[in-house]
């Protein structure tokens, strides 16, 4: 019997466990991934050229649609409820940014009243969400 040695490759590492590792990773990510669920309301955001990126993590969204429905965290609320909800969020996160996702046809009075409540709650960092205009 002739023993022939393959030129080049030396020892071979068994790679049969690669499948196990792959499944492990899959299960790990399946279990730990959190998907953003906030749906908000159906609105048409206004357009702007001067918009800046707002860091997502510190943001609470206030949704106001054109008929005047207000919603935070997918809960439909009325104006007086804004203050306690935002106060609670502010307690968790001091650097909270409240972003207004408001329909462009909504009457300005709603945004104004919401801002008055934010001032009472001392949530002073605010942002008006817009759609960037291609220049």
């Amino acid at each position: 019997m002739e023993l022939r040695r393959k030129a080049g490759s030396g020892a071979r590492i068994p790679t049969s466990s690669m499948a196990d590792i792959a499944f492990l990773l899959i299960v790990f990510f399946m279990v730990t991934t959190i998907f953003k669920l906030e749906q908000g309301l159906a609105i048409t955001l206004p357009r702007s050229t001067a918009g800046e990126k707002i860091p997502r993590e510190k943001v609470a969204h206030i949704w106001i649609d054109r008929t005047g429905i207000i919603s935070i965290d997918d809960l439909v609320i009325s104006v007086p409820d804004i203050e306690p909800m935002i106060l609670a969020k502010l307690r968790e996160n001091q650097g909270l940014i409240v972003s207004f996702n408001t329909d462009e046809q909504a009457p300005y009075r709603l945004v104004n009243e919401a801002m008055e409540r934010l001032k009472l709650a001392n949530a002073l960092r605010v942002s008006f969400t817009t759609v960037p205009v291609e220049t």
Partner: protein
Amino acid sequence: MVGESSMSDVAFLLLVFFIVSTTFPEIGLPMILPSKSGDVKQVKRDNVMQIVTARSGAYFIDIDTEPTPLSELKGIVRQRLTDNDNLILSLETHPDAPYGSMIDALDEVTLAYEELRAAKITREQRISLKMLEIE
């Protein structure tokens, strides 16, 4: 000769994971609200430029009886700012005016400030570059 057929599986896994978990940054116009305990300041009438958004969405500057079109707003603000460094812009909006009109005005005003800042920086950079050349 590692079994390479699973490489495409891992590739698809990573692809699907990133497709599902990718979020785009929010774009918006940031603002800091005044705190409720803030002091009221007295300012000279001459240092204030009033931009009033009427219920129809038209813009009136100071005591003009004719509305100013949106396209001219930025130019006028730039001019007034160049003339008077201490200019305070007062943006007032009728409660029944559409929110989008307020955002358009805020957008133009923000752009006016940004353009003036950019022009100033370019001027100053040119001056300092020239000084380097002489040396």
